[in-house]
C-alpha cells in the first residue's frame, strides 16, 4: 500500500531501509502506467533524476506548463504540441536538486485557462473519485495523479485557484504560496501578476515540505522576494485563541450540502479553541469580474509570443499576417481565444480606462479590504469551491464556468497565501476548506490547516485507491 504513503512516510521508509529508493520509484512507475490509461492524468511520462538529497527516491509529477529541459512542454495546447523545453523551471530544478524523480508532466486546461481540464487540447483527465466527473483544473492532471496515488506529490500552478480548486475536487491538499515566494521562471505565463506555483499533496505537512523546497529569491524572477519562511518549524503548534473570519459574501448563495460540511469544519476548529466569525468584505463581490478583466488582459500579451515564427506550430501562408492568423487559429482552442479576445479588448486604447484601469483600482480595494480583515483575524476561511466535482460537459456557459473560481480568486488578486484542505465528502465526492492569511503568513496558514487536519482525522483515498 505504498501509494497511501505521504512524502514524509516514504522518506521515513527509505531512511529505515524498509524500502530502497529504486523500489519506491519502480512501484510508482508501474502504478502510474497501469492507472493512467483510466485517468489520463499525464501528457507525457519520463524518469528524470538529477541530484541527490532528502527527496532521493521520491517520485513526483509536474504540470505541463513548467519547463523541463529536453522534455516537451505543451501547456495543453496544439500550438506547443511539439515544443521542446530549452531549460528547466526554477521550482522544478529545486526539487530535482533534492534528488526527486520526475515521472511525468500532467494534463491541464490549455495554458491553465479553465477549471476542469476539459479545455486541454488533447483529452480531459478523469476524477479518481468518479471517472465521469472532472478533476477540477487547471492543475487537474496533477491533482488526479496525487489523489489516485500515481505520485506522492505534484506541482501545479495557481492563477485564480488552479491548485486549490482541483485539490478540493480530488480530496487532497493544494497550497498556493504568497505571490513572490516561489519563482515563476520557467512557468509558461498565463497572468503574470497572479500566477504562482504550488504543491499538491496528500497531507498538509507534505505541502509545507515541498513548499519550503521550492521557495526562495530567484535571480531569474524579479518578482521573487528575499524572505526565509520556515513552514515546518511551528506547524504542529496549537492554534488556540486564533480568530478566523468567514466572509459573509461567501456564505450567501452557498448550497445546503456545502454549508453543512462547512458548519462541521467550524465546529471542529472551535474545539481547537479557535473563534470563528462572519465578517463582511464587500468588495469581494467584484473579485470574479476584476479577475476576468486582469487575467485575460495579461494573457493576451503573454500569449503573443506563440506566433509560429520561432518555435511551436506554424501554418505556412504567403504573408506574415497569414502565418500569424492561421497558426493562432489552428493552434489555440476556443477558451484561449475567448480570453485573448477579451484581454485585447479591455487593453485597447478606447477601453483601457473603463476596464483594465478600473479593474486595477478595484483590485487594490479588494487587497486593502482583505488586509484590513486580516489585521484583526488570523485567517479568512470558507469552502474552496461552491460545489463538488461536476460531470464532463455539465457546465457549458462560460459565465457559470468562471464562477467555479469565486472563492479562490481573491487570494490571487491580493497575492495572499492560501491552502485548500479536504473537509468532507458530499455524496462520496470530496470538498475542501480554504484558509487564507496575510502576505508571508504562509506558516500560519499551514499551521491552521495542519491543526484542522489532525482533528479531522485521516481523509480517505478514492475507493481505497482503486477505481470503480
Amino acid at each position, binding site marked *: 500500500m505504498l501509494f497511501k504513503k505521504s512524502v514524509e512516510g516514504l522518506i521515513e521508509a527509505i531512511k529505515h531501509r524498509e524500502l530502497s529508493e529504486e523500489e519506491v520509484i519502480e512501484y510508482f512507475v508501474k502504478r502510474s502506467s497501469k492507472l493512467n490509461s483510466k485517468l489520463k492524468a499525464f501528457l507525457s511520462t519520463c524518469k528524470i533524476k538529477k541530484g541527490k538529497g532528502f527527496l532521493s527516491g521520491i517520485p513526483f509529477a509536474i504540470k505541463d506548463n513548467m519547463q523541463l529541459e529536453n522534455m516537451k512542454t505543451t501547456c495543453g495546447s496544439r500550438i506547443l504540441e511539439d515544443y521542446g523545453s530549452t531549460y528547466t523551471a526554477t521550482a522544478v530544478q529545486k526539487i530535482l536538486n533534492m534528488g526527486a524523480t520526475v515521472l511525468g508532466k500532467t494534463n491541464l486546461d490549455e495554458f491553465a485557462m479553465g477549471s476542469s481540464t476539459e479545455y486541454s487540447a488533447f483529452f480531459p483527465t478523469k476524477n479518481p473519485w468518479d471517472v465521469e466527473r472532472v478533476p477540477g483544473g487547471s492543475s487537474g492532471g496533477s491533482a488526479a495523479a496525487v489523489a489516485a496515488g500515481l505520485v506522492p506529490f505534484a506541482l501545479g500552478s495557481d492563477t485564480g485557484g488552479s491548485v486549490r480548486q482541483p485539490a478540493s475536487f480530488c480530496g487532497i491538499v493544494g497550497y498556493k504560496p504568497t505571490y513572490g515566494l516561489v519563482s515563476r521562471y520557467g512557468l509558461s505565463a498565463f497572468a503574470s501578476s497572479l500566477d504562482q506555483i504550488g504543491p499538491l499533496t496528500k497531507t498538509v505537512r507534505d505541502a509545507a515540505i515541498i513548499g519550503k523546497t521550492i521557495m526562495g529569491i530567484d535571480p531569474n524572477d524579479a518578482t521573487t522576494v528575499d524572505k526565509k519562511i520556515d513552514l515546518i518549524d511551528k506547524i504542529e503548534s496549537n492554534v488556540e485563541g486564533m480568530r478566523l473570519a468567514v466572509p459573509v459574501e461567501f456564505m450567501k448563495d452557498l448550497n445546503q450540502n456545502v454549508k453543512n460540511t462547512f458548519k462541521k469544519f467550524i465546529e471542529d476548529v472551535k474545539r481547537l479553541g479557535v473563534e470563528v466569525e462572519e465578517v463582511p468584505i464587500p468588495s469581494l463581490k467584484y473579485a470574479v469580474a476584476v479577475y476576468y478583466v486582469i487575467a485575460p488582459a495579461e494573457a493576451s500579451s503573454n*500569449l503573443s509570443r506563440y506566433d509560429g515564427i520561432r518555435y511551436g506550430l506554424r501554418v505556412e501562408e504567403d504573408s506574415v499576417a497569414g502565418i500569424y492568423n492561421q497558426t493562432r487559429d489552428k493552434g489555440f482552442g476556443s477558451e484561449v481565444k475567448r480570453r485573448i479576445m477579451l484581454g485585447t479588448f479591455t487593453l485597447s486604447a478606447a477601453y483601457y480606462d473603463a476596464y483594465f484601469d478600473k479593474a486595477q483600482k478595484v483590485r487594490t480595494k479588494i487587497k486593502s479590504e482583505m488586509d484590513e480583515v486580516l489585521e484583526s483575524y488570523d485567517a479568512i476561511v470558507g469552502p474552496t469551491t461552491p460545489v463538488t466535482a461536476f460531470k464532463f460537459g455539465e457546465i457549458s456557459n462560460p459565465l457559470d464556468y468562471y464562477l467555479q473560481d469565486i472563492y479562490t480568486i481573491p487570494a490571487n488578486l491580493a497575492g495572499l497565501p492560501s491552502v485548500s484542505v479536504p473537509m468532507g465528502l458530499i455524496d462520496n465526492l470530496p470538498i475542501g476548506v480554504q484558509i487564507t492569511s496575510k502576505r508571508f503568513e504562509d506558516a500560519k496558514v499551514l499551521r491552521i490547516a495542519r491543526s484542522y487536519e489532525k482533528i479531522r482525522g485521516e481523509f480517505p483515498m478514492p475507493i481505497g485507491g482503486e477505481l470503480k
Partner: protein
Amino acid sequence: MKTVIGLEIHTQLSTETKAFCSCKNDVYAEVNTNICPVCTGQPGALPILNDQVVEYAIRAALSLECEIHEISSFDRKNYFYPDLPKGYQITQYFHPIATNGHVDLNNGKRIRIQRIHIEEDAGKMFHSSETITEARSSLVDLNRCGIPLIEIVTEPDMEKPEEAREFMEKLRDILRTIEVSTGNMEVGALRCDANVSIRDKERSSSRVEVKNINSFKFVQRALEYEIERITEVMKNGENVPQETRGWDSLTKSTVSMRSKEAENDYRYFPEPDLPILVISKERIDRIKKELPELPDEKAEKYEKTLGVTRDNAKILAKDKTLSKYFENAVASGLSAKDTSNWIVNEVLALFNSDSTEFNHERISIDNLKKIMDYTNSSKISRLVAKEVMAEVYKSGKDPDTIVRGKNLLQVSNENELISVVKEVIAENPDTVAKYKSGKTSVLGFFVGGVMKKTKGKADPKIVGKLIKQLLDDEN
C-alpha cells in the same frame, strides 16, 4: 508659413549586456549567437533589469538637464512583428525615468526634451527583396533583440531642418562624451524619427512622421524634402493627411508607409514581470558628480579662459579625443589661440577631406608642435607647412625628416632671392608700369610670382621688401 519640428530619438546604450538578460550586447557577433530563453521569448522566461542600463539612462538624462524620477516603471507595448519574439516590447510608457530636459542650440535657442525612457531593441530582419511584403522569405537575427535603448522625445521646438540636424549632432556629441552610446547613426546606434507640421495664416497641416533617417545629413535633407512636399500640397489647396512616411536615401525622397488609420493600437499596460524602478537621490547625486565636462561647458571654458574664438571652441569641444588633443597641445606649451586655429583649419581639414574621424595618432602633438614652430619662426611658410602636415598625415614621417628631405626650409637670404625677384620684375613690364602709376596694390602679384618660382620656400616678408626696394629704386 511656420514649420514645427519635433524629434523622437532612439539611442542604443553601449552596456556590457542586454537590457533584460545576461546576453552580450554585441550586434556584430555571428547571427543568433548572443541569444537566450529570455531574449528569444521562450515560454516561461522572465526579464531582469540590467542595472547598468539604469546607470547610463540616468547619466544621459542628467546631461540633457532632465528631472530624474525617483519612481518609474515598465510597461508592455504590444504588437506582432517577426523581429519581436515576445509579441511586445518592454518600455516605459506611463512613468518614464526622466522628463523636462533641454539642449541649447548654438544660436541660443532652447530645444526642450519632453521625456526620456528606457526600452529594448527588436531583432533585425533580412528580406529576400526590398520590403517584407515583396519578399519571398525573410530571416531574423535576434542578436540585437533586447539591446537597451533610451528614447528621447523633444518638444516641437524646432523650426528649421538645420536646427534638427544641429540638435542631433549636439545630442551625439553629448552621448559620446558621457560614454553611454557610440552615437553612430549609420549603423543604427542612434536613430531619429522626425515629426513635422506646417501652418500658415488660415490652416495647418496634419502632423507627418518621417522614419528611417540614417545620417545627420539626411535629418536635414529629409525634413527639407518633407517641408517642400507639404507646402506644395497645401498650396494646391489639398489636405495633408496624418501619416507615417519613410525616408529613402537612394531617391532622396519620402514615401508613405502607413496612414493614421493603419496605426497599431499598442495596448500599453504595466509590465507585471518587473517591479517598479526606484532610484535614490544619493544615486542621482553620485552620478551627477561623476559626469564629465559636457561639450558646451568645455567650449565656454576654451572661449573665456583660453581666448579661443567661439567657433573654434565649439568645434574642439564637440569630440572628446579632439578636445583632449587640444588640451594636451596647450599643456605642452603651445599658444591656445594659435593651436586652435591650426587644429581647426589644418588638422581637421585633412581628416574631413578623407571623411574619416579624427585620430590623434595620425598627427601627434609633437609633430604638430614641430610644424607650428617651423612656421612661427619663419623657417617654413604657411603654404609649405600645409604640405608638411599632409605628408605627416599620409606617411607618419617626422616633420624634420620631411623638411630636410625635401629641402623645404624657407629662403630668407636676400642674395639668394634677389635674382628671382629680378626675374619676376623683368617678366611683367605691364604690371611694373601699373605700379609706377601709383597702383601699389600689385605688389602682392609680384610676391606671388616669386613664391611660385621658389615653390613656396621664399620668405614672403623678405620678398616683399626686396620687390619694393627694386621698383622704388628704378624711379
